[in-house]
């Protein structure tokens, strides 16, 4: 299974850069069979990139009002009107990938709650803790396992 882990956010706005931090820590583990990517924000170009993978794991910050310090959700293709901005959401990307390139990967979004979005490159203590938790959980997901039959995998991707 070809997997991409994509962390995004503004690296210069403290906790908004948690996606980048998670990617840096995962890359240091030297895992095989996985690709990593960081981005300031998601845009149209990423639709083509993700369409080449079977699975994509997105990692982003969440606003302080988010109930859970970290959440893991399956992403569904869901294009929203606002999103044809300079930025897109993971759901937008999946729908664009399907419409433009005929296929989209299975996708999971790890949202890590941020507390401090001021200028800087340091994570606040809670975000730091859950960045490590995200690294641990994503690493588990990336461990080699038997691949499901190709037909069911394609079906899941279509509905992702």
């Amino acid at each position, binding site marked *: 299974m070809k997997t991409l882990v994509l962390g*995004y*956010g*503004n*690296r*210069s*706005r403290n*906790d*908004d850069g948690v996606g980048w931090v998670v990617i840096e820590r995962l890359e240091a583990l030297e895992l095989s069979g996985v690709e990593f990517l960081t*981005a*300031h*924000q998601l*845009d*149209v*170009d990423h639709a*083509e990139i993700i369409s080449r993978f079977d699975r994509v794991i997105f990692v*982003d*910050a*969440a*606003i302080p*009002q*988010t109930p859970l310090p970290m959440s893991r959700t399956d992403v569904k293709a869901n*294009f*929203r*009107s*606002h*999103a*044809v*901005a*300079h*930025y897109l*959401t993971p*759901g937008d990307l999946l*729908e*664009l990938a399907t*419409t*433009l390139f005929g296929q989209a990967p299975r996708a999971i979004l790890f*949202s890590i709650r*941020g507390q401090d*979005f*001021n*200028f*800087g490159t340091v994570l606040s203590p809670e975000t730091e803790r859950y960045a490590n938790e995200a690294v641990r959980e994503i690493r588990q997901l990336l461990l080699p396992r038997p691949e499901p039959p190709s037909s069911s995998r394609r079906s899941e991707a279509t509905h992702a």
Partner: protein
Amino acid sequence: MTEPSANTITINPVTRIEGHAKITIHLDDAGDVADARFHVVEFRGFEKFCEGRFFAEMPQITARICGICPVSHLLASAKACDAILGVEIPRPAKLLRELFHMGQLTQSHALSFFHLSAPDLLLGFDSDPASRNIMGLIQQHPDIAKRGIRLRKFGQEVIKLTGGRKIHADFTVPGGVNKALTNAERNEMLSGLPEAKDHATFALDLLKKYQESHLEEVEEFACFDSNFLGLVQPDGSLEHYDGRLRFCDTKGNVLQDQIDPANYLDVIAETTEDWSYLKFPFIKSLGYPDGMYRVGPLARLNVVDRISTPRADAELQAWRSQSVPPRRSSFYYHWARLIEIVYALERIEELLRDRDICSADTLVNARPAHEQGIGVMEAPRGTLFHHYWVDEAGRVEKVNLIVATGNNNLAMNRAVKSVAQKYVKSRQLQEGMLNRVEAAIRCYDPCLSCSTHAVGQMPIRVELIDRDGSVLHTLVRDQGTM
């Protein structure tokens, strides 16, 4: 969307623009539109954040202001750093920086036209906002959407091949650039040019056809008097990387010309308003707010005498022959953007065929020689100023940034007011009116992306407000995740 309360219109997320902002439309006692304001409701503070950093770090730091036009910040910052070093960078480095920038101009303008504005034009201002977007465009006009993606991709490839990365490349450094271009990279870019030019021609033809069938809307859309600012070469031709400042008035008369960008503080001043965190620049000699000016593609094409590349110049002259310049309708930002794409592609070819483009002479080393450095250039959205003050060790003591969206701040207020005066006919907001207000803002393609992009944030909103300050009606398009 909330229920109306009493006499102001507020549009709270204006979809498809960067960052976090709000539009308010103010009514007088008769219920007519008296004023409109484009509020930026997030404090930036970026200049303060940079204080104390070593000046050579500034290109990388300031590039992270924005995920869409980091190249512009990289280049303006590197130019300010060159000035602190007191060096003239090697010619090949200058060529490569300009090549880098032409890639940026292509991708940014392609995104703005095909993905943000084309849905307004091709699907109609009065179409359902839920489908008046890139997905709606893909479903109804898949070929057009794919052309936009291909053209943007070409620009991104120019950036990647020239600078090593598409986003936040550490390519431009004080004193030049840190990567020479290989022959293979040059040839790869050259091979993509014919297709890119075809997409640009297609887009221009599309816009010309639109104008034929919507002449009144095109001429009158968010149309108002203003001054214009852009960089020009010594012969008055279009320039994006270097050049000198030229200001024209609303009739096209040159107000000030060939101003050394290092003297920008002699001609531009800034003020603040208590309802926006974004500052309001104006022409010093005309005062505030009479000194309001516009920047960006339309302003650039309004101030220049000509364009140095043949195809783009022919398009410019044909465009100008339709009426007496300058063009005042904000709609013409789209037109100017497309002519600039034609220019960027021609200029990319010229640069790639220059005998020095693959030279390894790309960097000059020096120590800080001056206490200040100013870098000015034309970003896709308009004139961009970076000004740093440093101590003897090269530590940054003070920073002043005037970004394109800041330069257009007063103009965007006027654009919204112009549209609101034409389309707001009651104390209730109608979708068609709201769509046009948003479209007026999109002409300027504002970029407020120093704001964060955390999950759950709301980008903007619109309010209708009466003379007493009561909010009559609020429209919020979307509160979704970002």
